[in-house]
């Protein structure tokens, strides 16, 4: 009971912040439209995807949405550093609120923001790409898992780093290879052998694939296996995030 109301209070606060952050919404809306519009349309005529039931435009659009969800998750972890820099974190920590409510609140609010963003973008992209929402549950699971995993990653970094600059740098170093080797830009099956194996080891690959299933009804891997794996990943990521945050917040 207390836990839920604490969680609600934390989510509410994060939402008040998002709502005012116009740059966030404009950036998150404009970036995918620009990428899909310019690169997707250009490559759509030259790229033929083997075996997939969609064109390159659909593939890229769904991939970019997964990228957006991932970077949103990292951003969620980054708010922890912002809270520490502003000092607000100390006020939060001295309140009788469990550490897990704080972490889960950050994850949930990001999932909420990402769901809203994906829905909005699918509505726009549906007008010129094959993106629809045939499997909303799969899309939701993919968004939740990717967000939780990246928030956990963000928090694990945030507890070790003191400045926003080093966080951005290191987060980029870690996440860019994950993005490149996850089937966001090309189907995993088209990659050369070593990259293909790396992509199969990359958890994000299954999140991208399940999101694609949710938005396009196409997939490279077993939907059931991906779902089970992502569910487990979500639980593991939340656990890691809570433990990392709890350790990091104890001086």
């Amino acid at each position: 009971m207390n836990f839920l109301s604490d969680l609600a209070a934390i989510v509410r606060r994060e939402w008040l912040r998002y709502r005012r952050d116009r740059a966030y919404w404009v950036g998150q809306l404009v970036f995918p439209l620009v990428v899909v519009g310019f690169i997707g349309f250009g490559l759509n005529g030259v790229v033929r995807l083997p075996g997939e039931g969609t064109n390159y435009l659909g593939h890229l659009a769904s991939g970019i949405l997964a990228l957006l969800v991932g970077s949103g998750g990292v951003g969620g972890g980054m708010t922890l550093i912002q809270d520490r820099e502003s000092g607000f974190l100390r006020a939060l920590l001295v309140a009788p609120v469990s550490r897990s409510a704080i972490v889960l609140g950050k994850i949930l609010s990001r999932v909420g923001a990402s769901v809203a963003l994906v829905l909005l973008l699918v509505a726009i992209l549906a007008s010129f790409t094959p993106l629809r929402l045939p499997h909303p549950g799969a899309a939701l699971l993919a968004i939740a898992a990717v967000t939780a995993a990246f928030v956990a990653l963000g928090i694990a970094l945030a507890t070790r780093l003191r400045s926003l600059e080093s966080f951005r740098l290191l987060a980029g170093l870690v996440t860019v290879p994950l993005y490149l080797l996850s089937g966001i830009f090309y189907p995993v099956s088209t990659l050369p052998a070593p990259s293909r194996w790396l992509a199969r080891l990359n958890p994000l690959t299954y999140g991208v694939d399940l999101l694609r299933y949710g938005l396009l009804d196409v997939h490279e891997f077993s939907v059931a296996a991906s779902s089970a794996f992502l569910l487990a990943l979500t639980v593991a990521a939340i656990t890691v995030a809570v433990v990392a945050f709890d350790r990091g917040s104890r001086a």
Partner: protein
Amino acid sequence: MNPEATTNPAQRSAPALEPAVEAVGLVKHYGDVVALDGLDLTVERGRFFGLLGPNGAGKSTTVSILATLATPTAGRARLLGRDVVTERAAVRRDVGLVFQETTLDRELTAREQLDLHARLYHLDERPRRVREALAGVGLERDADRPVRGFSGGMKRRLELARGLLHRPRVLFLDEPTLGLDVAARAAVWERLRALHASGEVTIFLTTHSMEEADALCEEIAIVDRGRLVTRGAPSALKAALGGDVVRLALGRPQGAAEALARVPGVARVEPEADDTQERLRVTVAEGPRRLAQLLEVARPFEVLEVELHRPSLEHVFLHHTGRAFERDGPGAAA
């Protein structure tokens, strides 16, 4: 350390109530830096208590430990009888904390800020309490502006309102007026005095301002380099130095010392060697009241100059540590 420091008559007369704060042998290391080096401290309920010391003395570390934000390397501490390490959740409910640095969410308005905290402390009647808290610190007209645009004084008042919102039983204030201008500081002082007068809360304040400790606190403890130096009421600490000092330069000093020593309240009269002039240093209780009488007695010896020195906490600090106060202590950890 003074062994009497941790026991206190009030504690013995009211054994049923645990003290507001009770710390025994607190040690805190940050890597190689020793922030606290065996601090013992007891604060009775309802007191306006001040922890005084130079920067780096360990004041903020003490507050962090007592408010459950840091774990001591050794020693233990209780707040209202509850252990600050093993009973964190219960302790947090009773604690209000106003930090040295700003701890507000800059993007939220003052009202949203307090509303969030009312939710986190599970308070009833949130809108009313938030409204009253804002009014209590004179921020009702700025309630719906984002904190980003607040001045330093407004932020501090908002922090104070937040620290008090859930009616804590122990309020910690870590350098509450640091960096404020005179008017803003006076506003904070006034609010704190009113709060203390209400008698509902123990106030635990840290400051490196002697003036602040002297003006506000009933009882102070002086810390230096992570250890307790001395403690007591500010007036008692000053009185322990022997009273006020009246320095007299006389034209014909022969026999003056004997005459002055007979004035009631005079503890001692010492000659003070000076290159140019012979002076007498008269240590006397209640200097301002005795001054006229002293001058009357001194008149036949031709008074050239008079100075009255009231002992300040600076003198107390100097007396106990052998160092002047307004210098930053070693080590960065505060």
